[in-house]
């Protein structure tokens, strides 16, 4: 079925349109509906990936007589979606992660009813707690009233934005999906509705409104030059004149803003700190999809440009360092993790862009593979740490990482999970971070040994930051002030263990993973001609 590629975008969209109506009826039905949608979309993505592996790159023309009618007059006139091995693989993987984070959100957001001040142990608090329980039992049987239905609507819409990023081959559609991403993320940031949330949501949206308009300006420049909006035909006609460079700089800066690496990372800690953890996972996925589009545009559409590749390498090194050094002076757990997320994205950019500088060599291909492989590991590692941070906040309600003490005594399992996350993110064997970082180190060495040294140094600093936090949160005697407000739900532990199992299995069998998933993806990314030929025969 060739329609899979549009159904994977249209089905979550349809479901999101229906969700406010279902949410009015019943909360449980609504959650079931969201889960069903995510499951269906995940299955579609599996079939789509299989189809892509069988038939090669797929192009789907929206509104044409038949889907493969891409260029009736020798040039495309309609919107075209392209699915190749890279975007199909990323969609498959992202949907899996999103489904896990959805399961996580079910439990975590349920707990947010229990918001009575149980800090004092008197009878009044107990009565309030009972009142809250009663309220829940009412709300479960009747309609939703706490905004969870709106949360899940925005959740699905953000997913649509991410999938649109992955499959679109049209510059203006890219702009539209960019806006869907920004607005849905703004809503998710403001979910808890306190002053901090509103402020960071306002800053986020103001920055991204200007950023998306810059993207549109760049698209307009390309349109004035070539008269088309399709990426493939622009890639075919590209001349790299001055206007093209300006357009590339505008589009790339908007995408770097969305990805949140070096020059424009300032929104990240604020936004991640304010939004609930399941939304943070989705936000990381959205950043990664923006990076995918950045690679796609800068290397497939605009072709190889040495200076741009060097600028990207510079940015990646600076983001590795900026992330770590800014994390050193923070004390809020989620802010620290968001700075580390910036530095992890730096490795992805370092791998892929240095791979393109060494194109047509073996180490260059390996660097691209390493970068794309690190995309997978980034979301697993950073996602795991964020999930654990969410659990810690859920049970202790303390945001300052240095105020929590002695968690290992009370929750040894949590300490173990966190330790796995620390080892994986800092690239120690035998976990997944080691596999991809090793590939990046080895291959980047052929471009310049300095890059490898800097990258290893960054990893060591990440380890230093995280060991400090681990010692402060988990070690030592538990203090009297930190009381548990919740027990850890079993489902949450199961989800985190799925993450751990995935990380272990990738870390133990990296070769198999790379040859079966990452290798076709990297081949799809480097062949510009293949991308053009899928539209213009």
């Amino acid at each position: 079925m060739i329609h899979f590629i549009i159904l994977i975008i249209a089905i979550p969209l349809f479901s999101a349109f229906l969700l406010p109506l279902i949410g009015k009826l019943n909360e449980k039905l609504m959650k079931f509906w969201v889960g069903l949608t995510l499951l269906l979309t995940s299955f579609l993505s599996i079939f789509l990936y299989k189809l892509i592996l069988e038939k090669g790159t797929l192009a789907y023309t929206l509104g044409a007589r038949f889907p493969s009618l891409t260029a009736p007059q020798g040039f495309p006139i309609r919107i075209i979606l392209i699915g190749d091995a890279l975007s199909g693989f990323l969609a498959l993987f992202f949907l899996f992660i999103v489904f896990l984070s959805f399961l996580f959100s079910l439990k975590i957001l349920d707990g947010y009813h229990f918001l009575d001040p149980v800090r004092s142990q008197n009878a009044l608090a107990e009565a309030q707690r009972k009142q809250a329980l009663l309220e829940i039992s009412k709300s479960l049987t009747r309609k939703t009233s706490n905004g969870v239905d709106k949360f899940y609507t925005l959740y699905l819409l953000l997913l649509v934005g991410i999938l649109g990023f992955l499959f679109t081959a049209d510059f203006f559609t890219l702009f539209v999906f960019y806006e869907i991403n920004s607005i849905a993320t703004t809503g998710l940031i403001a979910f808890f509705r306190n002053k901090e949330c509103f402020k960071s949501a306002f800053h986020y949206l103001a920055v991204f409104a200007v950023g998306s308009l810059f993207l549109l300006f760049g698209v307009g420049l390309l349109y004035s030059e070539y008269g088309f909006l399709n990426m493939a035909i622009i890639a075919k006609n590209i001349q790299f004149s001055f206007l093209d460079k300006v357009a590339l700089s505008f589009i790339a800066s908007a995408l770097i803003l969305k990805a949140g690496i070096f020059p424009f990372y300032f929104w990240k800690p604020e936004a991640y700190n304010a939004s609930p953890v399941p939304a943070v996972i989705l936000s990381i996925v959205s950043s990664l999809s923006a990076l995918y589009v950045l690679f796609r545009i800068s290397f497939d559409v605009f072709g190889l440009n040495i200076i741009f590749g060097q600028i990207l390498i510079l940015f990646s090194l600076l983001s590795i360092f900026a992330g770590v050094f800014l994390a050193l002076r923070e004390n809020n757990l989620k802010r620290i993790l968001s700075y580390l997320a910036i530095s992890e994205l730096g490795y992805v950019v370092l791998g892929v862009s240095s791979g393109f500088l060494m194109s047509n060599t073996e180490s260059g291909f390996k660097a691209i593979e390493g970068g794309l492989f690190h995309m997978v590991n980034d979301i697993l590692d950073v996602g795991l740490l964020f999930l654990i941070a969410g659990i810690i906040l859920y049970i202790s309600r303390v945001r300052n990482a240095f105020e929590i003490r002695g968690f290992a005594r009370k929750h040894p399992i949590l300490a173990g999970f966190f330790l796995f996350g620390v080892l994986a993110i800092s690239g120690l064997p035998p976990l997944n971070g080691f596999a991809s970082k090793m590939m990046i180190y080895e291959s980047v060495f052929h471009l310049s040994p300095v890059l490898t040294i800097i990258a290893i140094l960054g990893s060591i600093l990440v380890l230093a930051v995280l060991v400090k936090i681990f010692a402060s949160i988990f070690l030592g005697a538990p203090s009297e002030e930190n009381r548990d407000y919740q027990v850890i739900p079993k489902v949450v532990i199961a989800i985190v263990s799925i993450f751990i199992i995935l990380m272990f299995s990738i870390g133990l069998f990296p070769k198999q993973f790379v040859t079966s998933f990452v290798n076709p993806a990297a081949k799809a990314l480097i062949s510009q001609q293949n991308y053009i030929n899928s539209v213009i025969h």
Partner: protein
Amino acid sequence: MISFIFLVTILLIVIGTSGAMFKRNLIKIVMSVNIVGAGVNLFLIALGYRSGGVAPIFTNAPSLNMVSPTPQALILTSIVINLAVTALLLSLAVLIYKEKEK
């Protein structure tokens, strides 16, 4: 050769960007974002203009020399998106103001 209309669009974009960078007032930031949006929309619509062209609508059209329709379709989308962003920004601004009052 620099056309006057493109210069105007650049002026609007620069004014909007500087407003978004320097102003602290939330409403003024929203206005700046809108000014940038107006500049970019004007830029796009100016790209599609052909001298002496009429609107690309065949109903009782005065002539068949028509301006490029694609930019018009694009800014139609872009304007509505700007509207949505403005609405969300304004309601956030109202909420921040109310939180400050308390």
